[in-house]
């Protein structure tokens, strides 16, 4: 019996630790009204970065296109939650069934996730055959296309204008969403599918030789990742309260850069790294903002460069948070070091 408890505790250690950390930080942050918006933004960003991690972290393929899913999630939820009266003058050309739609915010967020998952399945089917830089370009093309459509499909998105959505998120509600995202990402990472997609990341040739199709494994991660990012996008939209498309808008390079920076600073290969990256970057930019608001972006960019130069694998590398080692009886599995050695073995070609 105690063995089972030990097993369960060992398995759920990292996600529980991360959730605990988030609860403490969120409660501390929300205790002062001044910090409440920052706390809400941080928690919705946790969902976004965990979503990005599910694909990029597990498959090793960098995606510049996830902000496209953020936008799709945010617009889907906006269309389902903006009050009827407001919709009639913000978006007068909406088709009738959407104009009358008004659902619970949680359902709207889930709808955002589902729409993103469907889009991901559709575009991922061809795109996931690509890897490396070609995949980067293809996902970038997706971001550009989503942005163009959002800027020009006036009937559905209000075009270039700003869309005002209800501010209806609470810290407790956001904690539940962030916790759920972390739990889903963790279960996926430790599942058979997770291990298979890791195999295509670390040893693509060996994985193919064992009959693991990189395209299929990546597609699974991509669809799940889009689902989480879509939910995160819906939440993020409601935290912002108002957003607009376009190059200077809410869902373009600025956000893409920040999400990737968070993931990379924490450690691309670790779920704990993804969450920690959000916390560190949020704290850092909040601090910078207090010192000198103009320097916030400059400081963030310098911090990211320093991390990349000093620790190319991120703050945590591929480690996960967990129980302190003295609490756990060591098992044979612990003796095995499964972390890939790639980082240390940078080719010394140059």
């Amino acid at each position, binding site marked *: 019996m105690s063995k089972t408890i030990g097993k369960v505790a060992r398995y759920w250690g990292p996600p529980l630790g991360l959730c605990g950390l988030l609860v403490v930080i969120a409660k501390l942050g929300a205790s002062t009204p001044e910090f409440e918006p920052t706390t809400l933004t941080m928690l919705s960003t946790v969902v976004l970065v965990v979503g990005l991690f599910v694909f990029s972290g597990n498959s090793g393929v960098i995606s510049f296109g996830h902000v496209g899913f953020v936008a799709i999630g945010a617009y889907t939820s906006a269309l389902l939650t903006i009050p009827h009266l407001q919709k009639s003058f913000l978006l007068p050309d909406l088709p009738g069934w959407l104009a009358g739609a008004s659902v619970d915010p949680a359902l709207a967020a889930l709808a955002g996730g589902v729409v993103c998952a469907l889009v991901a399945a559709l575009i991922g089917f061809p795109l996931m055959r690509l890897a490396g830089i070609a995949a980067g*370009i293809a996902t970038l093309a997706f971001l*550009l296309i989503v942005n163009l*459509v959002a800027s020009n499909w006036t009937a559905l998105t209000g075009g270039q204008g700003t869309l005002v959505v209800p501010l209806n998120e609470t810290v407790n509600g956001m904690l539940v969403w962030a916790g759920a995202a972390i739990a889903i990402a963790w279960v996926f990472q430790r599942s058979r599918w997770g291990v298979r997609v890791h195999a295509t990341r670390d040893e693509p040739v060996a994985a193919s030789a064992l009959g693991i199709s990189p395209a299929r494994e990546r597609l699974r991660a991509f669809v799940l990742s889009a689902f989480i990012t879509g939910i995160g996008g819906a939440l993020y939209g409601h935290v912002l309260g108002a957003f607009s498309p376009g190059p200077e808008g809410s869902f373009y390079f600025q956000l893409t850069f920040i999400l990737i920076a968070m993931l990379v600073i924490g450690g691309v290969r670790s779920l704990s790294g993804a969450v920690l990256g959000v916390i560190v970057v949020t704290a850092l930019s909040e601090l910078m903002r207090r010192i000198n608001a103009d320097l916030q972006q400059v400081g963030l960019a310098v911090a990211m460069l320093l991390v990349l130069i000093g620790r190319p694998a991120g703050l945590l590398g591929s480690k996960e948070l967990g129980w302190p080692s003295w609490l756990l009886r060591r098992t044979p599995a612990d003796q095995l070091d499964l972390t890939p050695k790639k980082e240390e073995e940078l080719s010394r070609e140059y």
Partner: protein
Amino acid sequence: MTTIIQNVIDAVSLGSLYALIALGVALVFSVMRLVNFAFGELIMVTGYTMLLTEHFPFAATVLIAIAVTTIVAVLMERTAFRPVRGADPTTLMITSFALSYLLQSLATWTSGPLAKGVEMPGFFTANISIGNVTFSALDLITIAVVATLVCALALLLTRSRYGLEMRAAAEDFKMARLLGVRPNRVIALAFAISGVLACFAGIALVANSGTTSPMIGLQAILVGFVASVVGGLGSVPGAAVGGMALGCVRTALLVTLPAGMRPYTDAFLYTLVVVVLLVRPNGLFPSKSQVARV
């Protein structure tokens, strides 16, 4: 007939600008496997240098802009990219992403986020008429300058010792080092050349819009990035062809799409790009060093 000629000139002019940008991206990639997002900010540096020197004689403005942009390009390599040299391409790409963001924020911090007007000599905006066909002088200047630059670059790469070293480094860096090619020198040279190319691209972009802004390089780097990947990353001639093709296809789409679809031109363009990548993941002319061997 006259509209066809005008459209062809437009297409070639846009294509040569894209080819110029793609060459700048591809040259650096070929020697150190770095997709340099910060290339766009070299264009931005040109823009702001031109803004600061706009009252100088135009020749002086151009010379100063070339010097400043080249120096910034070499400094970029020295400070940000040398420490991560040899890391995997994704890490390199993200490093350049961070550097690009840093330079953009610095520009926003020092001179504000809005576009600023730059005074350009009158001959850029003139129109030249031959028979009943009217050409914009800017288009013709762009085509002529890019043609000259491409010829000069081709001569440098094929006829000089430095060019030979650079091509050797692009093909097999380790082997080139063993045969006495100095890595620091060849990489710095690639950055310097890409700085010169960025400067000319910057002048063309500023002449075209009459303004400079922190975001001026964004569109350019996207195009350069896409064109060099379509052409075949690592292949310098491929990048030129990719850029030209992208410019021509974009003009063709602009001309043929019905008015209602025109805002979506780039969406069609990028969809085509993805299709090309799906058929040929290594681009149209893959470089030998990029084809995976097991």
